[in-house]
């Protein structure tokens, strides 16, 4: 089901030109005419939010921007691979913006502060407990 929604949404969104509007009535899977897909297109990535009529469309458009700017701050020049290899981190950041489908925080500094707090806690645990772990041994990723 989840994959189906993603496929359908991608299908809807990816066909659209850049200068058409960023709102579209959702496909059949996401439930009814009360829902809209609001998306932004950044280079190779689409960020798509599905929202009901209780949210302002332009507001959500800005929220996507806030989310992306936050990602950019947290990952330093965020790129596609950051999002894939750090999907848990992305989720934590998203959780600081949207919670249970509702807008939690819109202030980027506040969000970044929360994420940094998490990072500090994570680091302190890692350094104190798992210091003995062998070298991470990541081989450079080759994209052919």
């Amino acid at each position, binding site marked *: 089901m989840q994959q189906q929604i993603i496929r359908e949404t991608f299908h809807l969104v990816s066909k659209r030109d850049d200068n058409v509007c960023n709102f579209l009535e959702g496909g059949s899977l996401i439930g009814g005419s009360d829902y809209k897909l609001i998306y932004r297109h950044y280079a190779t990535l689409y960020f798509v939010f599905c929202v009901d009529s209780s949210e302002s469309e332009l507001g959500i458009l800005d929220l996507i*921007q806030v989310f992306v700017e936050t990602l950019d701050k947290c990952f330093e020049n965020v790129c596609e691979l950051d999002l894939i290899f750090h999907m848990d981190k992305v989720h934590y950041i998203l959780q600081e913006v949207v919670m249970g489908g509702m807008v939690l925080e819109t202030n980027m500094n506040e969000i970044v502060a929360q994420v940094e707090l998490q990072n500090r806690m994570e680091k302190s645990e*890692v350094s104190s407990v798992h210091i003995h772990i062998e070298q991470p041994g990541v081989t450079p990723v080759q994209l052919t």
Partner: protein
Amino acid sequence: MLSNAPVYKRSVKNIKDVYISHINGKSKEAEIKRINKELANIRSKFKGDKALDGYSKKKYVCKLLFIFLLGHDIDFGHMEAVNLLSSNKYTEKQIGYLFISVLVNSNSELIRLINNAIKNDLSSRNPTFMCLALHCIANVGSREMAEAFAGEIPRILVAGDTMDSVKQSAALCLLRLYKTSPDLVLMGEWTSRVVHLLNDQHMGVVTAAISLITCLSQKNPDEFKTCVSLAVSRLSRIVSSASTDLQDYTYYFVPAPWLSCKLLRLLQCYPPPEDGAVKGRLVECLETILNKAQEPPKSKKVQHSNAKNAILFEAISLIIHYDSEPNLLVRACNQLGQFLQHRETNLRYLALESMCTLASSEFSHEAVKTHIETVINALKTERDVSVRQRAADLLYAMCDRSNAKQIVAEMLSYLETADYSIREEMVLKVAILAEKYAVDYSWYVDTILNLIRIAGDYVSEEVWYRVIQIVINRDDVQGYAAKTVFEALQAPACHENMVKVGGYILGEFGNLIAGDPRSSPLVQFNLLHSKFHLCSVPTRALLLSAYIKFINLFPETKSTIQEVLRSDSQIRNSDVELQQRAVEYLKLSSIASTDVLATVLEEMPPFPERESSILAKLKKKKGPGAVSVNELEEGKREGELNGGGERGGDNSGIAASNASTPSPSADLLGLRTGPPVTAAAPSAGSLLVDVFSEAGVNDDGFLSSAPPSVVSEDTAPPLPESNELLNKFVCKNNGVLFENQLLQIGIKSEYRQNLGRMYLFYGNKTSVQFVTFTTTVTCPGELQSHILHIYTCKHMFILAYTCYDKLNVQTKPVEPLIEGGAQVQQVINIECLSDFCEAPLLNIKFRYGGALQNLTLKLPVTINKFFQPTEMASHDFFQRWKQLSQPQQEAQKIFKANHAMDTEVLKAKLLGLGMALLENVDPNPENFVCAGVIQTKAQQVGSLLRLEPNAQAQMYRLTLRSSKDTVSKRLCELLAEQF
């Protein structure tokens, strides 16, 4: 800044390879193979003898999550994730919660364990842990979670020492629980403190709280009324602040845009403030927002204009919602007008959308109309279908009598190239506008025929039914319609819907154009028949009916048509319906006298007017609220104009063709008649039969292709709750049997010996009349029923006399029309012939608006109603009890108490049952015993009852003995539901 924690890198290293192969486009199989290998590895780790440490658990849970997000199913690891929740390490807890939020569905068995962990974290006073727990509740949001935490969270939300970030999470968490289980979230005492969160220092808290307050206000506006003035003052402070005042909450030079939007949304839950000062302040805010829109932008960035316009659109929505400030409305309209031509597509889209609502306000309707050219242009030139759709919506909304012709013409021409996804809706809209604003009906007929020509596939039944209804109801357009449709049919390829309309209209009104030799009867017939072989079965059926009508209209066509009917392809058609029609029509045309023919095939009577079914369909399509109330009322008004009210009754209802109760959704010519001949035969009215028997026609279901629709439509199955409703009346005789939004059925009944009389009161709860209200009593299964419906021509009374072998039910007719708010009464006489189990079914059909309501209930006639109480002494009772000692004479049930075990209530129920309640008979004073005789026409059945409550176990044992096994069994079943 973030440094990549080594743990994390390691945990996804293997998976990385998978991903690389994924994006490298290696085969799907290779990916699946790799994943399966990894899953097997993780599974073995989890199952291994060695207990995993928290770190490894975390690693593997994280991998599982990753695999899931790649699109693979995960069916294990949940337990390990739950274990991580109780870890005191933040990172382990975090991944555990993430896994659960993403992967655990709300009815998982693990929910109890999860709840426990959440409970611990909520009480930990560690804000980060509390937030994690709150996030998890909000993401899962199950009922169990609501039950566990709905009481706790408001406390966290309003506590003075709660951290801001926790407050934010708590507010949204509560909102989520309220959305899923509103009954469990009781604000009560917290209400005013929650409202006062609007004054909170921290803007983030206000933003989160306002979502909660908005949702709660929508449900309980009165309790949260005080939020209006708080919201206005907060808004006013934001709007008047300089762009730097709010520091972090200023977004690209716009102060707190999200919060402003939310505040404006909250205000849309309420009417304009009554307090003059508050209202003044609010109007000032709205004016400021409108003014700011005209100021030069402080930044060229799109984020700046987005944020600014988000507020502007919300402000305009609020202005439209209030609909009371003409000055603001006109300014809003002008502002939107500017946006209509803006180069940003998003703004054009939103402007079209807002203008749609603006168009329904009387103050701004005219102002909106001035933009008609821009909107038409948008419909023609916009590259984005979403925007074109909005433009079409707006054209529809701004349409009135003055511009209807222009708009309908534009929409029709757009339809030729319109996107497939919106064609059906466009067709409905055009049809509605054409009907609503038709001044001369020839324009209307032209429009609909054009519609069929351009987009025939998208013209639903409702649309072409409607055009036929209107033509039939208006004499002045009939000749024109016949002529136009005749011309349209000349086209070499015409849509099947056109053939349907053509067949119907020429069958009714072909005579009006028969004078012209170019459209003489035979030419008309040949034209129709030339399309016959291209059409589907329902259309062919309709054409056959048109042919028989031709025979009546034009006797000179009789031999030609008879020949067609007689041909093998008709009379031996493999389709039963077609064959039957051919046979019957052929027979009718050769046997019936001209008079009978003329009566049977008389012109259709006018249709009673009601809300356009097309409008109903559009509403259904767009969901409630899509069509404004205004529009509905207008629809009604227009309806009266077109139709001429309730004229239905004055035509003779004898003819088969017009006995079919006219309705937009029911088939006009009985095209879809469900029941085959034999099933329809006994129910086809006897008067109907008389007509034919007079003419010497065999009455066996003749013309069953058009039986009265009340009978032809299938009877609904009994409501699911009908058993429950029946149980309500086992121990009582009066009360409300059924109630829904439309109808209330009250019941009063009295029984003596084996006879009963029941009064049913049908109350119309709406303000609209119910028409063709009919009721039928039948008995399911066990008996052969003979139902005779007698249709009196004028009022369609139904007198049903149902003769069962067990119950004899006689129903007096009920008025076919119930005015809004009125109540009618129906009397039913019942005679019990022998004992029975199944209650008779009461089927009720009527039309409300256009829609057929069809519901079936069980009449609360149960065997115990025919009890005659028998008083007897203790000695007699036990003697009889012993006499009825054969095993099949006894029925016993042990069951749990459904209601409180109150002695007085029990007594009352047992008395209501109809038996005599015998005091001082059972040695145990807690027990109840009763005695009675069931009176049926065939025999009397003595019955004894013993009910033994066990207060400790909250159980009963119920024993029944009677001289007939079926009676014991049935009584036991009935009574077990009562206590």
